[in-house]
């Protein structure tokens, strides 16, 4: 199993009048096909860690490598290109572009990357949306969907360029228990069937218990990093 994310002593300090430490000295290594939960109390730095791992934010200390490439010397454009091709994001709120249809939202990252032909992009978009049960909503705009449907569109979009890693920040946080379960199953499927690596922040310890590994954050530090002992073997689907 090859390492996809390799963080050493990763630190993020906000340099304001009173310096605020968001993430402090986190060393973690995440491999292919891992399903990782990030847990911890509110304000413990879970989101901050995810932004660092996703190249959205710059660490003030430590090193980070994505897919074996050191992110330190990367320029802004290269970081953006890495995000585009290697990393998918799903946030607590869906963050879809409101003027575009569901289909267009999913196709936009593909168009930015420009590797596929337009018909191939459309076919891939249809396939992704269908696999997430959204085949009847492709021509709708985000405001015509329910919260759970939007979150599934966001997941489809994060998969647009077939990145090896999906980073999710409380993807089920704003959903009711039924939608929440549906989204969780999809994420699990990404790992089990599509071979993705999913790193998901969650407050829900019962969901965390169904994942493979749990990183527990306290006060910006990685307090524990353990394999989840499962009561019963995980079932896919």
């Amino acid at each position: 199993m090859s390492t996809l994310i390799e963080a050493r002593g990763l630190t993020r300090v906000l340099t304001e009048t009173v310096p605020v430490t968001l993430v402090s000295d986190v060393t973690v290594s995440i491999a292919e096909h891992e399903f990782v939960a990030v847990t911890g109390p509110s304000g413990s730095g879970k989101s901050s860690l995810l932004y660092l791992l996703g190249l959205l934010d710059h660490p003030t200390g430590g090193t980070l490598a994505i897919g074996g490439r050191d992110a330190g010397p990367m320029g802004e454009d290269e970081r953006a290109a890495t995000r585009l091709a290697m990393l998918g994001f799903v946030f607590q709120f869906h963050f879809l572009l409101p003027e575009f249809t569901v289909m267009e939202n999913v196709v936009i990252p593909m168009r930015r990357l420009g590797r596929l032909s337009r018909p191939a992009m459309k076919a891939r978009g249809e396939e992704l949306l269908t696999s997430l049960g959204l085949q009847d909503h492709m021509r709708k705009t985000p405001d015509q969907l329910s919260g759970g449907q939007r979150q599934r569109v966001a997941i489809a979009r994060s998969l647009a360029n077939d990145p090896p890693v999906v980073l999710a920040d409380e993807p089920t946080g704003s959903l009711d228990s039924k939608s929440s379960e549906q989204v969780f199953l999809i994420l699990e499927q990404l790992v089990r069937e599509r071979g993705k690596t999913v790193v998901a922040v969650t407050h829900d310890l019962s969901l965390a218990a169904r994942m493979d590994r749990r990183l527990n954050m306290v006060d910006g530090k990685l307090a524990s990093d353990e394999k989840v002992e499962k009561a019963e073997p995980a079932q896919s689907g």
Partner: protein
Amino acid sequence: MRLLFEIAFTHIAGRGRQTLVAMLGVAIGVGFSIGMTALMAGSQDDFVETLVNTMPHVQVSDEQRRARPQPAEDAFDAIAISGLRPREDGRGIMNPTALIAWLEAWLPGRFAESLQLTGVMRFSGRDVGARIIGIDPQREPGISPLIGHFHQGSFASLTSGGNNVLIGDTMAAKLGAEIGSTLTAVSSKGLSRSFRVAALFHTGSTARDEGEAYVLLKDAQILSGRANAVNDIRIKLDDPNSASSVARRVEAETGYKSVAWTEANESLLQALVVRNVIMYTVVGAIMLVAGFGIFNIVSTITHEKARDIAIMKSLGFPAKDMRRLFLIEGLAIGGAGSALGWLLGFAMVYALSQVRFELAATGQEMTRLPIAWSIWHYVIAASFALGSAAVAGYMPARKAAKVNPVDIIRGAT
């Protein structure tokens, strides 16, 4: 890139009314700039054309820009002579026949020699100061500013036998003379001669209508007491723009001061340059104001769409895409406004070209506004508009590109 255009379009479309206002701002700016430049350039062309038509393109006079070198100076380097006074004041172009033959050999245009002297025209006890101009009746029509301006008699009547004179209507009125009256011309040397008024002209130029009297060259030579004298050669060129090079050639060859119309009217032409500078400053100012409208809407969009910028950046759009996106939006509004402005400008110029009015001074001449039609007015106005749109779009675009997605994602959660 097409993706960015599509995104830009949705942003602009989402702010229809404000976009329309900004576009109209540009359109009005472009339209008025086009109208103004058409009028300004038209009046300038009109003015220059009048200059070119009424003035000789090159005027060769009997003056010399530098004192003629004295034989002693030619012979000895150490000798310098200054402040010389010629013995006799009878100046003139020496050996005009040879000069005329030389000009005839190569000049791309027409010319006529003349002898001009100052004197007085006298009729029934009244005197009017006049420039008495002796002309060659064969060559003069080719360069004459009088042709087409006779309202009694004609140019040809100058040679109708006897001593004839052509004067302006104003001079005739001052003297109380009419066609057929016999005037006495008195030169500054005191020589006098009688002339019959053969024709009256009205050119619209007061100096000419009131102060010039045209006679045959030989009569002028008699009046001045100098046979064969010529002191002025006026040249009309096929191409007025070649005037300065022709003037240089003539002056280099003959040593006589040859002045191109561009040189003679240098200060006037310079004033036109100043006028153009002022005009384009005003055009620039109009566009700057139109630019504020664009700046306003683009920066509104960047604020409103901060979330979308964060989304796109988190998806992997680089900062330069965001700069381009909002620059495109500014340019699109500027471009659409320019296109609309072209229509407006065209309509305005067309309307102006239809305006006719009477000149109060003469009451008889129906005049149109001088309008210049030129594609350049449209190109220049649109480039000013696009330039200011680019600046107006770039400033908020640069700010948008700096948006930190983390701040916005955090703000939303």
